[in-house]
């Protein structure tokens, strides 16, 4: 059975690209554009892994992730971020809240590698 990945990003282009890439690598993908949709999707069809943007419209991505972890515990989370102004400082904060964080400039192959590692494939 295919592993299920939930993608949360307010930009449609990001969602479409990641969906196309991960589906092509034999994953079942659900994409949502807001924190509210993410909570609904996560509870109705729990994923095996979550990929989320840090900055969502009207919401803090980390806050959404914390709520989602409470609702469906034990699921690994990858945070996608833009360029970090102070990587060392932000890294220290992010690493406690998510299982992995990657910049949006990270190649897709690297993102796939991270997904596979977290899903222990």
């Amino acid at each position: 059975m295919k592993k299920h990945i939930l993608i949360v990003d307010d930009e449609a282009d990001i969602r479409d690209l990641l969906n196309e890439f991960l589906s092509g690598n034999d994953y079942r993908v659900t994409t949502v554009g807001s924190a509210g949709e993410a909570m609904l999707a996560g509870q109705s069809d729990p994923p095996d892994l979550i990929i989320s943007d840090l900055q969502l419209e009207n919401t803090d991505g980390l806050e959404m992730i914390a709520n989602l972890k409470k609702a469906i515990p034990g699921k690994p989370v990858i945070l996608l971020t833009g360029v970090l102004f102070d990587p060392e400082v932000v890294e220290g904060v992010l690493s406690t809240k998510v299982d992995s964080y990657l910049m949006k400039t990270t190649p897709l192959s690297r993102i796939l590698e991270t997904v596979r590692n977290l899903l222990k494939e």
Partner: protein
Amino acid sequence: MIAVSTVAVRNIGRSVDSNDWVNHTHAVILETEALRSSLLVANGTLHTYVLTGDPRDQTACRNALADIDDHFQILSALTRLAPTDHAKVGQLELPINRYSRSIEELLVAKAAGQDNTVRTLLEASTINNAVREMERVIKSLKDNQLALLTERDTASYHQSQTTRWTVWTGVALNVLLLAGVAWLIRDDLSARRQVTTALEEANRFLESRVKERTRELGSANRHLSTENLERRWANHSLEHQLRYNQRIIDSISDLVFVTTHSLNISRVNPAVLHVTGADSTSLISKPLKEVVRLVVAPAGSLSPLPDPLKYALKAGQDLRDQPAEIQDRLGQRIPVVLSLFPLRDNNRVVGGIITLRVTRPASKHSA
């Protein structure tokens, strides 16, 4: 096969001809026998008539004479193409005529009751001589036919032997030919099987090559698709990042000018427009010095430089916290602190970044 058939048919034809000739020879013999019998019957019925005077005997005698003539005609026809035999038959004509005439005279004389004439004719040797001559010729003819029969029987035997040998030789040849053809067919079949095997082998090889190539193309296609996705992802993320960077720069309150190497303005941030009250089109391509002016020469310089900013840019040096002035669109001078940073691309100075911090707030202008 055609040659054998031709020879066999010819031999069959010869056999039929030979059979006809045998029948023909038998016919000649039978007619000579019949002629002789008719002669005996004629003699017999004649003497009977002479004794009895019965008209029926006369009729029988005349019938016998007619039969003699009939058999003679037939013999003549049968021997037409055999000169020797035909000549012999021809020898019968005279005696038969003499004989017939004599018998007829006798019959007429007897019917007329002329017994003396009958006696005289009977005693004459005419009839007997004729009969003897006829018998001699008939015997000779018959002996000749029997000899011919023997000859033809031998020829027929040899003919049948020849036919037999011809047919068996033909059969043997045909068997050999068939064997040869069978061998050729077998050989041909074997060659065809080899060709078929080779073709199948070639097909399998081609199929495997095609599969391999398809796999390669599929792999290349997937690779290209992945590359394409990576490129799109990279473009998108760069674009996204550029937008973010732009927003960050646009939110800075310090005035930021980006210039060319010649210190002509190429970009300004919104803070510049806000403080100067100018619009971007009026500033772009304008020399910086028309908008910004250093108040004093940079610290540490021995003599005032004609254009310290140009000098710093050319030297590739930073220039920090220099007092300067900016003029707004109303001509009002606004004191600022100027810093210059060379804009580098691969270690090559391609332009400059000049930041201005306003030290005394100026009156607000609409941008």
